[in-house]
């Protein structure tokens, strides 16, 4: 009968108008933003400005890449992101003196990943609601980090690693390279591997996936472990490049990441989505933030505007789902 294809997932879907629109909507949106930007301000379309915009959003973009797996597999969202960012950053700087920068950074990654693994166990294996579970682990870990540093600032010592993190290769900052590198690994992980297929299946219908011999608990847990690791990586990078870190270093990053994933068109209800779309979502949120400043709006308006866009995106998704469900 009437087929209303819910926001399409992959690019090779049948070419109904809806699917075509959802495939092209991200490039179109980016193009529109670029056009608006170049008209609005002569400084927008410069290599310098665009590089800065991307550089500033790469670290949090890493988290959005992980969050894509959380949402696709029906895990809603990981709210413990700020805590894991803080852990990654503080452990790195705290341990720098005693074990050297490289090992300390690894240590930071490890601790944040552990946070992600705990989330995974709570959500995947013990089946606790993800919002509640990550709210809990987030509070605990953030509290722990505040106890560790007593609410103060930890400063970095100069090191080769932090110099490298702040440098550029071929004119492109290392942050952006890292973001591209991680995206290039995670995109095929979701689109082309068994694990990716499992994630889509678990988010699409948990019970049916379980009955189809999909390792449902592992799949769900892995998404959170991955997000913990990437939040940690974000924290490590920020700490090394800023030369300092505080427990509040990652505050609000969970929402920035969620925004990017949702704007990319991944459904908060699970079952579809792609890493490439999230990359698009990161670009769009980055450009919107930049435009707000260039257009002379107060930067406080950023939350208002991106929030409204997220609500719109979720609303459209829910609308299509309902229509497709009624059929």
């Amino acid at each position: 009968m009437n087929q209303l294809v819910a926001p399409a997932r992959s690019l090779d879907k049948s070419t109904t108008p809806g699917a075509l629109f959802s495939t092209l909507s991200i490039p179109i949106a980016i193009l529109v933003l670029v056009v608006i930007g170049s008209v609005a301000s002569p400084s927008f379309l410069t290599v310098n400005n665009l590089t800065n915009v991307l550089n500033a959003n790469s670290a949090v973009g890493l988290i959005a890449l992980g969050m894509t797996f959380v949402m696709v597999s029906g895990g809603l969202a990981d709210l413990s992101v700020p805590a894991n960012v803080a852990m990654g950053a503080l452990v790195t700087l705290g341990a720098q003196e005693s074990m050297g920068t490289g090992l300390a950074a690894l240590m930071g990654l490890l601790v944040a990943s552990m946070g992600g693994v705990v989330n995974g166990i709570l959500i995947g294996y013990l089946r606790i609601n993800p919002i509640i579970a990550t709210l809990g682990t987030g509070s605990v870990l953030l509290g722990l980090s505040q106890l560790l540093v007593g609410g103060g600032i930890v400063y970095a010592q100069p090191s080769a690693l932090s110099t490298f993190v702040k440098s550029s290769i071929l004119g492109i900052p290392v942050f952006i390279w890292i973001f591209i590198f991680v995206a290039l690994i995670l995109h095929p992980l979701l689109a082309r591997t068994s694990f990716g297929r499992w994630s889509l299946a678990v988010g699409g219908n948990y019970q049916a996936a379980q009955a189809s011999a999909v390792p449902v608990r592992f799949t769900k847990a892995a998404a959170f472990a991955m997000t913990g690791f990437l939040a940690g990586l974000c924290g490590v990078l920020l700490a090394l490049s800023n030369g300092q870190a505080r427990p509040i270093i990652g505050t609000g990053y969970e929402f920035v990441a969620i925004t990017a994933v949702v704007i990319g068109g991944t459904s908060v209800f699970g079952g579809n989505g792609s890493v490439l779309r999230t990359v698009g979502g990161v670009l769009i949120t980055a450009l919107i933030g930049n435009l707000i400043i260039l257009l002379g709006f107060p930067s406080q308006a950023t939350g208002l505007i991106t929030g409204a866009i997220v609500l719109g995106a979720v609303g459209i998704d829910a609308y299509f789902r309902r229509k497709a469900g009624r059929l």
Partner: protein
Amino acid sequence: MTTESTPAVALRMTGITKSFPGVMALQDVDLEINEGEVHAIVGENGAGKSTLMKILAGFYQPDKGEIEVGGRKAIHWTPREARSRGIGMIYQELNLVPDLSVAENISLGAMPTRGPFVDYRAMNAKADAVLRELDTDIDPGTRLGDLSISQQQLVEIAKVVARQPNVVVFDEPTSSLGDKETRVLFDVITKMRDRGIAIIYISHRLQEVMEIGDRVTVLRDGRHIETRDVAGITPDEMVSLMVGRDLNEMFPKFDLGLGEQVLAIEGASRAGQFDNVTLDVRKHEIVGLAGLVGSGRTEVARALFGLDPLEEGTITLAGKVLKIRSPRQAVAAGIALVPEDRKGQGIIPGLSVRENFTLPVITRITNALLIFLGKERKIVTELADRLKVNPPQVERPLNVFSGGNQQKVVLGKWLLSEPKLLILDEPTRGVDVGAKADIHHIIGEFAQDGGGVLMISSELPELLAVCDRIFVLHEGVIAAEISRADATEESVMRAATGQEVAA
């Protein structure tokens, strides 16, 4: 139950036409339902039954055509208007709130009040009256979730009857009911009819249409084909009107030599579900598992597949004793299950046909890292072709396909895993006759190729036609093992209702 004078027309739909983008769903369909008749509507999936009923209920607006209820033309036909003009709908899925009482469910949306408060006394009295009218002994104060499915369905009917409808549509009401519950439902329908309510009865089960219907309308490809008295038509005639061709054999049966044992269950028990169940399936064999709803059929299947592991007893598959604790282990051992609840446990609605097909075997078509997409496409296209998945577009999400085609995909998914034992729980429920024949054909081929099949079905004619042997469960205990030669609807029913105990 008609009076001597011509019966009054309760509902008249004329020239109803409705198209969706790319599909002509209904074309110039006429339908006339009299007061006090049970009017059956039959047709394959996609014939237009649901669309017609959604128009009647006010969910869709027709492109052309008129609706007349009780002689008055319908204008501004919305769901609310349809309800207030006395159209009641009873769907396959129940629309009830488990945590509310029976009376609250019946009055939901129109609770009697006194001042700002709900008048519980009036509400209970109203519920009691309606339930009494339907001759049930359900207590209005019971929490709905504590009732059995068939009792819940009676509550759903009571909810509709409480609004004093003129026309009530039953859409596949028996698909989740056993034979006994179906009896109760038919009694209720007869009572409603005798009170002058016009009943529209939609079902794929033609035996039921023969039994309960006064007249029958056949739809095919969105067109009205014929309306006839049920007394003057046979099920075979109905089928050929529905498909527009003769299906000479509804259940093709291949003659196969039996092979060695594939499955043996011995002394299997799970407290409160089934007790000391012993049965076996051989190569090339299709074994039926019959029984009323709640007899433990589905529970045995779930235990075999590791969804609810056995508490006692052994499972032997191809000579090896297995401890099955999860579906993953079951699949690894060579067991597949096509579940009863297709929507809940069978399909991943948003994934494509291709992705659904290969889900259990996806790790077998990957190298160390990536899925071989080309190989996957090739396998899937061949399979879709063999199973006659229609339309043959494997990249489309599964939720836009009809129930029969979804079921073919669930079946095909397990064929790809090449199981030794295929368990089927109600494999043709809610599936139209064409797809049903296709599915039986697929099952037959699987057995022919050396697989063993354990099949559960509430439809006795289906079991009798397809199975080589039938085990009958009664209250969780195997009551009989009946060979193909001795199996009749009577012998199976006697065992299923506990009137005959296995020797």
